[in-house]
């Protein structure tokens, strides 16, 4: 399974990608929306895991852009905020919504269910 991880915290997203690779999930990562779009143009991903709040392009804006490039790709949102607004927006537009810090087993389960 190949997935795309996007979060502006490099130390988080790179460690997460490495841990997923130990569990048989091939994860590319980007720390901003533009790089994520470039990766999606050149690779096919089944699922994208997106941080809701990022500098520049938000996770929700990125999802809209990615949907045009890769229709059918599924989404899981991550957020550190936990605000009701984030939850409403994230849960309405994604297959799943997880709060940071994430439990990796739960993330894998959500990615597979997405």
């Amino acid at each position, binding site marked *: 399974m190949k997935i795309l991880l996007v979060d*502006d*915290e490099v*130390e*988080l997203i790179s*460690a*997460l990608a*490495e*841990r997923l690779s*130990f569990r048989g999930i091939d994860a590319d990562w980007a720390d901003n929306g533009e790089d994520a779009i470039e990766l999606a143009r050149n690779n096919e991903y089944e699922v994208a895991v997106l941080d809701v*709040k990022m*500098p*520049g392009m938000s996770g929700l804006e990125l999802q809209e852009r990615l949907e045009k490039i890769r229709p059918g790709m599924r989404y899981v949102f991550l957020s*550190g*905020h*936990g*605000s009701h607004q984030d939850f409403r927006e994230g849960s309405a537009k994604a297959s799943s919504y997880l709060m*940071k*810090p*994430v439990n*990796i087993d739960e993330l894998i389960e959500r990615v597979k269910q997405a």
Partner: protein
Amino acid sequence: MDTVNSERERLRFFGRITAAATHDLKNVLAIVNENAGLLEDLCALAERGQLTPDRLTHASGRIREQVKRGDGIMRRLNDFAHSTDHDASQVDLGEAALLASGLCNRVAKLHETSIKVEAETSTSVTASRFEVIRLVCGLIEAAVKATGTSGGVSVTTQAEPPSVTVAAPEGTSVETGPLAPLAESVGAEIVSSDPHHVAVRFSGA
């Protein structure tokens, strides 16, 4: 509409600052969580003899860095919380500028800009520390919004007259009109030599 000096606006400011700080802390915890998990994964590899020590050092180094980052966020948040302890006190403008800049780091990051502080000149004024910090944060936020991705925001302090200056890149315009009543309430005024360059000037030490 609530004015800048209403209790509602003060509460909103407190909420904005604490929300940004707790968001950053969540990220710190998430990074510590992932790198602690990575260490566990790497230990499992080590048991099978498939590991070089540098990978362990890298992950533990990241955890140490995040502990330091989290400590900085907590110290600023605690310092900010204590700014409400007294209605009026001696406020070191250099310290207030440093704290306000630190508190505004997240909003700067979200606007894809950065804040540089040069607060070497130490000077004090008698005022509400909370309101001085709110005022300087207000100036910084206005400069950050004006700046966007076109450069960085600089914050400096001056001793004579006691003042804090906030500068956005040339060609931008920092809108500070709504902050004027707040400046007045702490015995200061907002002066602007150029549209991108604003200062809060206190009437005396």
